């Protein structure tokens, strides 16, 4: 080929244009399809919640909804256990030690905020579910499931607020509740919400409304003890009424609950009552399963049961060996319905029996109360060895004693002490009787309301409880 000085022909130039067309057109075509192509789930497990199934799955999350639901502060402040001096010295968790010693200030940093954040975390989930359910259109065939999930959400939210109210707000007083501090009532999953505390009246009304709704919506049965039934909602409402001393309603709902499930495990039939955890998890007595917030100070491996409590169990009381083990001088608790060292915080039929008996007695039906109590005790005492039940005042005392013995380490004792102080005029002074604890906790003390964790106060500027 010689040096080529030649004219460009039109063909070549046309080729350039064809090229230009392609480079303009291809991106345009790509961006046309792009929107659909990019509208693809990045992760199969990842979903933007929209269906009843999505909301069902959120509430079926037992590590959120059924774990650490009951604040530990109440149990830590109660009088059923103690810490040996050696363990007290080695214990490094300040808020737990302050709570054990009934100090005015409990929290020193963010530690311990799970008492607040775990129930509010559940409230966030329920709000997310309720908002989604309310905004969606339900098909006829989904309606049953829709109602169930909605009922769960109302129940879970009521449960969380109920537990929070026992710890961070004062005992309910119908006359003064309108002027008393309640909880921040969050009803939307909105991260921009301005947080402020409602009155105690509003708080209790809110819980009540959720429970009413739950009872209407919930079915009688469930696939798992971690998901509530109508019976569980009645039990929680009975508990709610008992707690505000409305014994008639408490009785009504306890009976309602028992009408759906009145099963009691006969402790005489337990295979190996001295085993580490003789009672299985999710057993038939359980109406709703959840746990008390893990706090190392009340972990069975660290704390010991007071002799005061242990001695209340008679030798013919099967709970003595089912719940406790004595090694050397130390009494270790092993009676949790979680079948592990985690403390059980849910609802059981036995609590309903005891609520029913108490209400019956308080409503002057002592024979009914006696029958109810006896029916319950038969499952707890060695066969035909129930210590004879007294009458009158002493019967109430016995009912409350059995209540304490049954519901040990379930986060209930604290509420009961507050309740007895408020409505029964009990003057009991809580006292650790240990050299290294200076404080005592007399009835009516402002320290029966726990302080709100510091990070909550700092981030929201809500009013702190005065102790």
């Amino acid at each position: 080929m010689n040096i080529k000085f030649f004219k460009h022909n039109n063909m070549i130039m046309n080729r350039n244009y064809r090229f230009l067309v392609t480079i303009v057109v291809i991106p345009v075509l790509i961006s046309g399809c792009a929107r659909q192509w990019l509208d693809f789930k990045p992760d199969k497990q990842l979903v933007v919640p929209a269906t009843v199934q999505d909301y069902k799955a959120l509430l079926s999350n037992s590590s959120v909804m059924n774990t650490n639901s009951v604040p530990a502060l109440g149990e830590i402040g109660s009088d059923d256990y103690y810490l040996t001096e050696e363990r007290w010295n080695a214990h490094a968790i300040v808020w737990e030690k302050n709570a054990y010693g009934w100090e005015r200030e409990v929290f020193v940093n963010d530690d311990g905020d799970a008492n607040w954040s775990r129930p509010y975390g559940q409230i966030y989930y329920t709000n997310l579910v309720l908002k989604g359910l309310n905004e969606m259109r339900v098909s006829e065939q989904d309606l049953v499931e829709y109602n169930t999930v909605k009922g769960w959400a109302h129940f879970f939210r009521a449960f969380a607020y109920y537990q929070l109210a026992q710890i961070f707000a004062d005992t309910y007083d119908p006359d003064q509740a309108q002027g008393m501090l309640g909880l921040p009532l969050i009803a939307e999953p909105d991260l921009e919400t301005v947080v402020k505390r409602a009155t105690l009246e509003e708080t209790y009304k809110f819980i009540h409304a959720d429970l009413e709704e739950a009872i209407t919506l919930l079915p009688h049965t469930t696939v798992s003890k971690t998901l509530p039934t109508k019976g569980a909602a009645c039990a929680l409402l009975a508990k709610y009424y008992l707690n505000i001393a409305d014994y008639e309603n408490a009785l009504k709902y306890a009976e309602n609950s028992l009408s759906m499930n009145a099963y009691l495990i006969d402790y005489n039939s337990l295979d190996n009552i001295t085993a580490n955890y003789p009672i299985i998890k999710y057993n038939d007595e359980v109406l709703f399963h959840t746990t008390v917030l893990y706090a190392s100070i009340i972990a069975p491996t660290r704390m010991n049961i007071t002799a005061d409590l242990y001695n209340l169990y008679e030798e013919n009381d099967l709970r003595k060996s089912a719940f406790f083990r004595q090694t050397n001088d130390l009494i270790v608790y092993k009676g949790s319905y979680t079948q592990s060292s985690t403390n059980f915080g849910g609802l059981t039929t036995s609590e309903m029996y005891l609520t029913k008996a108490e209400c019956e007695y308080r409503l002057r039906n002592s024979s009914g109360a006696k029958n109810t109590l006896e029916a319950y005790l038969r499952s707890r005492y060695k066969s035909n060895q129930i210590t004879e039940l007294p009458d009158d005042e002493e019967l109430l005392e016995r009912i409350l004693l059995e209540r304490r013995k049954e519901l040990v380490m379930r986060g209930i004792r604290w509420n009961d002490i507050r309740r007895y102080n408020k409505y029964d005029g009990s003057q009991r002074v809580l006292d650790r009787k240990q050299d290294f604890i200076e404080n005592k906790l007399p009835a009516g003390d402002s320290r029966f309301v726990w302080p709100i964790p510091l990070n909550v106060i700092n981030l929201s500027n809500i009013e702190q409880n005065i102790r």
Partner: protein
Amino acid sequence: MYTKYLINVLLVLAGAPHLNAQDIRLEGRVINEHGEGIQNVKITVYPSANLFYTDGSGSFLMITENEIDSVRFEHINYFPKRLNQRELDIDQLIINLREKQQTIEEVYVTTGYYSIPKERSTGSFSVIDKSLLERSPKLNIIDRLENLAPGLQFDKRNWRGTSPTMDNTSLRVRGVNTISSDDQPLIVVDNFPYEGDINSINPQDIESVTVLKDAAAASIWGAKAGNGVIVITTKKGQYNQKNKISFSSNLDLAARPDLRYDQNYMSAEDYIALERYWYDRGLYASRESNIGMPVLSPAVELLGRHKRGEIDGHELQEKLDILKGYDFYQDASRYLYQPEVTSQYAISTQGGNDFMNYMFSANYNKKRESIVKNSYERINIQSNTTFRLSDNLTLTTNVGIAQQRHSPNGIDISGISNYFPYSYLRNTEDHTMGIIGRDYSSVYKGSQENEGLLDWAYRPLEEIELNNRTSRTSEYRINPTLSYRISPWLNMTAMYQYMQHKNTTREVVDRDSYEVRNLVNRFTQTDGKRIVPHAGILRLEYPERISHQFRIQSNASDINLWGGLLNALVGAEIREANQESAGFTYFGYDDDVLTTQPNLDFENFYNVRPLGSSRIPSMGRGLRSSTDRFISYYLNGAYDYQNRYTVSLSSRWDASNLFGVSFNKKGVPLWSVGTAWTISNENFYNAHLIPFLKIRGTLGYSGNIDKSVSSWTTISYSNDFETGLQKADVRTPGNDNLRWERIRTSNIALEFSLVNNFLRGEIEWYKKVSSDLLGPRIMDPTIYSVQRGAAFKTNYADMTSNGLDLTLTSGLRRSKFNWESQVMFSYNRNEVTNYNGGELGSITTYTGALLKRPIEGYNIDTFFSLPWAGLERETGDPLVREEEGLSKEYTRYLNSLDIEDLDMHGTAVPIMFGSWRNNFVWKKWSFSFLLSYKFGYSFWRDGISYNTMISSSTGMHRDFANRWQDAGDELHTDVPSVPSALVANRDVVYLRSSALISRGDHIRLNDVTLSYSFGRNQAKLQAFAIAQNLGILWRRNSHGLDPDYPSARYLPAKTFSIGFRFEY
């Protein structure tokens, strides 16, 4: 709608007037004395002064409208040549250029989208070529880059000397520009982002590595370029290159890991004395009575037996004396570790003729790892071919196949968690295998064995023999590229890459292994019923990743415009990456006949020993399936005027399926501009002492991607462990205000060479401003409480970093002696300029060497510690300084602290670092060494932790020998005395204090290499020896610690390699 638009475009274009100029065409090739084509020869056409350049094969094709009088051929390493019109009148022009003696190697920078000579770039690039990569025998390409590029920092704080295949090294290209998003640079292999395992890349196949550091260099990678980009290019053949075969092999030997470096050592005698002291004070009582039956040390068990009256004082002493005779470290070193041996073989062939070129290579590497019974193998096959299908159409196909096999059957010292100084792996007397406590106390285990349970003892040496784990990784990369030359200046390229990365892990847990025996025993019911069969377990796991990437790009090159040259490209890219993983566990597995026991009860809870209840550990492994999709458009252009002025522009727009629609809409295009002025090419320039002088500057934006955020409320599904039901967790709470992280980088550089290229240098100053950084904002838990992995990540901080990179190269070239020396220096400092994520409540969370805790006004790597107030004279207890004076109220003190009360020790990452490399060549010998240095940072030493020594078997430390023992010791030691009771936070105020902080500054001799070349002309043989990890020459700390690895159990061992390269 788009069709309509398309038709419009076509109509407009069809109606456009045709250019119909009278063009002149000139074609040929420029070659050197060896007949090899010379790339990037500048061709100036006179009288028009139009410019052209030769391509990779030295060929050129120019078309000009103007008359040609003469043509000048220039190249920096060759004597220029000028041809007049008559000389051009030849069939197929061949121009020979004669090489200058003092050459400067023409460096090409490759971004993955285009490749240009460095002298024509405005951006900041560091190129590491083949010969530099060959300095190191390391199997991982990234590891070989250390100390070879300024601004590229290797952060080894996580190296623990436990996993020899994974270095746990994190990279920083010019510091760090993000807080909680991915902070690792993007790695690009042969033009596409690399999705595989970097260990699959064989360094011997690599031609060069380019590090893109500033905006002009990296912004073409857009939203992924925020942390810098490392571009890896594999070897290719060349047109008209004679077939070349090369073979190389080397053998690397690394010494047995030296456990004497481990700071957590204590002598058996000291430890037993300590345990006795504490035992007498009842400090083990709660462990002894714990119903969870935790492991007790052999000595504590003996003390317990003595206390219970099972053995008398004499026997106790006798048995303790026997224990004192053992040294676990000696055993571990002897039975668990071995010298590491690596052998590498590589063969390759390359060549080409007029219409095709090729490169084919095969490699085999085998490693016996430093942990006994661990082995590693890798096979790589790589083929790169290019065919010229027609005058204008070429097809390039790269194929890479890599297979890796790793068998981690050994156990390292940290795998034996509950060892004590007097534990042993093999009894010296009767040679029985030693038992190490695991899970439960041996007293408890013994009592259970008496009840008929299986032998429950854990014998590490037996486990090593039983382990049967293999992980196989295979990777396939196919990358065809079709390139069409539409006109001399216009080229269109379509590229596609398919990549498959598959990993299969198979583990057979032997029926006699501890794991099986433990599981069987734990699940044996009180009536003796076994829930888990006493048989093997087979575990399979197979994650797989498949990606498709397609790119279409058109390049316009060397367009004459206003007397200068314009190069430009536009392109679009589409990418999809799928990841799937699955796995399964078979119980009751029999490896001989492949039977399993499928019908176990995974549903119900069983009581387990010693306490609690559990299900049989699940059969399934987590199933995952994820898809990333990206669409990007980009353009890049540079205009070069007379080799004096260059202006560049780059822009890119990305969209993906990851973050939600509204987030994408807010994605603004990322762009950069740059300019360069080569002063020495000006006509007025006549500073002969500085033959080359260039200034360049760039400014631009790049981004960073965080896959974990979304503008939507999202939930993720899984199975609830407790109930087995389908459950969902909230992953992101939804956030309409999310924005991409953006990094603005400005860069100014000066390049020069002095005195006939005796000294060449490059100084670069840069500033990076990162805004809208994502991170977890601390929320009021009333509104949103942080669940696992569901923190509210939002744009919460801004930071800046600035720094300097300096490279100086000097050399002498004589006929028999060559010397080249290169100094690199990098400086980088950052500051958090804005932070609104909230403050953490607990002050000790700010103290730590590995943290990135943003505090406004501070470096993100700031190293905080508790102030140290010394030891109490009477007791040797640590003191703390409170308002009222010195005290021992540790807990109260810790809770009263604010950030302002903490001591600050600069940063935990060096702010100055670099290297000095020297090469000497004398006749056929060549010798080289590399020193590296790091200055301006601190590191944390481990310390003794008495509380954890009592509660578990960790916390021991060599410092025990220097502890406070008598009044007066506090004057020369900071190590607290042995406490007589557990005191909360007594250790914390010491371990987190400035007493344990040392300066990290040091200088290190990295490697020394020696080689000898044989042969003449065609056949070349080179033999070499390399020594690596040679140790520290100078350090500022007086503890004998290597500041890069203060907490490692052992240091990377000295490695010696010998080998040869043969080329024909």
